[in-house]
């Protein structure tokens, strides 16, 4: 078992970690999340797929409250999401987030990007944070780039740094919001490889993606969303071989042809 696959807390598998209950959200008149109920168990890897505009990114962002919700509740590890302030910041520290556009801090080196959270939020000594950061950067294969700035790295390298940055916080759950959509095709694999090894290590993951390959190999469950609602939910094998709804069939038909 590599360090990357090691989990900060011994997972008590099977117990619900993230629970969304009757979540609704509107952007003006647009009903972007429609009565969402999901329960994600510790150690589970859930892939959310669906056509663009289906609300899957909004769902992902709502889980660490980068988007607010209008109705319903979201609970993490048994506690409802705090509204504001320190409690919310503490919650976010426990939820790792990887963005489509990487969002590495442009003015900080790769190493500083990874150590900022541990030092400022977790209050770890600098030396300890740096040692841990270098270890994580080695694991994702960008250890030699530690002293560079984000703009000097390729997209794939940046996204792997972003994963290391999230992992440095020792999160309970990792959210991936289309992590490979902004990447050139030749870089997608290096990022997916890291994600697969994370999944195998038992990390609880919620992944919004179009990468069906990843869903097949790594997911425990696939959630298919369309027009803000969950249309279908199944194991990857069942979902890909035997989709139930017309919309899922239609979507898979378009995706898998190419």
């Amino acid at each position: 078992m590599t360090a990357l696959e090691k989990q900060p807390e011994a997972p008590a598998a099977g117990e619900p970690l993230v629970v969304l209950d009757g979540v609704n959200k509107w952007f003006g008149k647009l009903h972007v999340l429609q009565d969402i109920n999901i329960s994600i168990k510790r150690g589970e890897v859930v892939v959310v797929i669906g056509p663009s505009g289906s609300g899957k990114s909004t769902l992902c962002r709502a889980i660490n409250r980068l988007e607010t919700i209008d109705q319903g509740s979201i609970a993490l590890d048994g506690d409802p999401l705090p509204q504001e302030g320190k409690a919310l910041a503490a919650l976010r520290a426990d939820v790792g987030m990887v963005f489509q556009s990487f969002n590495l801090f442009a003015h900080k080196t790769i190493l500083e990007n990874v150590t900022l959270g541990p030092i400022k939020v977790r209050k770890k000594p600098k030396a300890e944070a740096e040692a841990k950061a270098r270890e994580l950067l080695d694991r994702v294969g960008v250890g030699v780039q530690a002293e560079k700035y984000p703009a000097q790295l390729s997209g794939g390298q940046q996204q792997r740094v972003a994963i290391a940055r999230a992992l440095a916080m020792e999160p309970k759950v990792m959210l991936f919001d289309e992590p490979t959509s902004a990447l050139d095709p030749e870089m997608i694999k290096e990022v997916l490889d890291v994600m697969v090894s994370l999944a195998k290590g038992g990390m609880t993951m919620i992944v919004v993606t179009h990468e069906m390959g990843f869903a097949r190999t790594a997911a425990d469950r696939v959630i298919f969303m369309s027009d803000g609602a969950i249309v279908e939910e199944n194991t990857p094998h069942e979902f890909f071989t035997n989709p139930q709804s017309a919309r899922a069939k239609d979507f898979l038909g378009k995706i898998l042809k190419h």
Partner: protein
Amino acid sequence: MEAVLDNIGLVGWAFAHTVLLFLFSGVLSLLLGTFLVALRVGPVVVLQRAAATYVTVVRNTPLLIILMFFQFAAPKLGVTFNFIDVQWGEVSMTSFFGAAVVSLSLYTSTFVCEALRSGVNSVPLGQAEAARAIGLSFGGVMSQVVLPQAYRASVPPLASVQIALLKNTTVAGVFGVMEALARMRILTNNFTGQKIGIFLAFAIVFVVLVEVLSFLASRLERRWRIA
């Protein structure tokens, strides 16, 4: 020109007043401007509005009126700076110096705020989201991620604001501070025949001071651009 050279000591001390006015007001305006921009982009609506109102009112008020307020109206309301009394060589920092620094700082801070706000707006939203996502508080997001990048983006406009401040210090010359303009007017009054030379000499010193500022700003800009 002769008049300036013959009185070079007095002229030097006058520019010492000018530079000190600038340094104190410059630092205070940067601090206050940063505080204002934090309020303006912060999450508390009341503070956003308060800061926006402050910026609108003070920025749209002529500097002269702000100085008049602190020199003539504030004392009647019990606000004075009489506790300030520092003498360094021929530099006299008293209530007039204090009132000038306060006026210049309050006035310039609104421009600093707006320059920084344009800088903050130029920082991609994703930077703040990523900072929030690792659990930084609002203060942490601002101080660790947004403001450092905003400052980098704001160096050119901030330099303009500070250059304007340097020149605005001359207003203090008619509010009790013996800075460059006040000294120049004594010289032009005294050496009527050398007016043009005196004007030129003082203008040249100001040009040199502004050039030094511009140079520092461009150095900073270049250093931060690599980063």
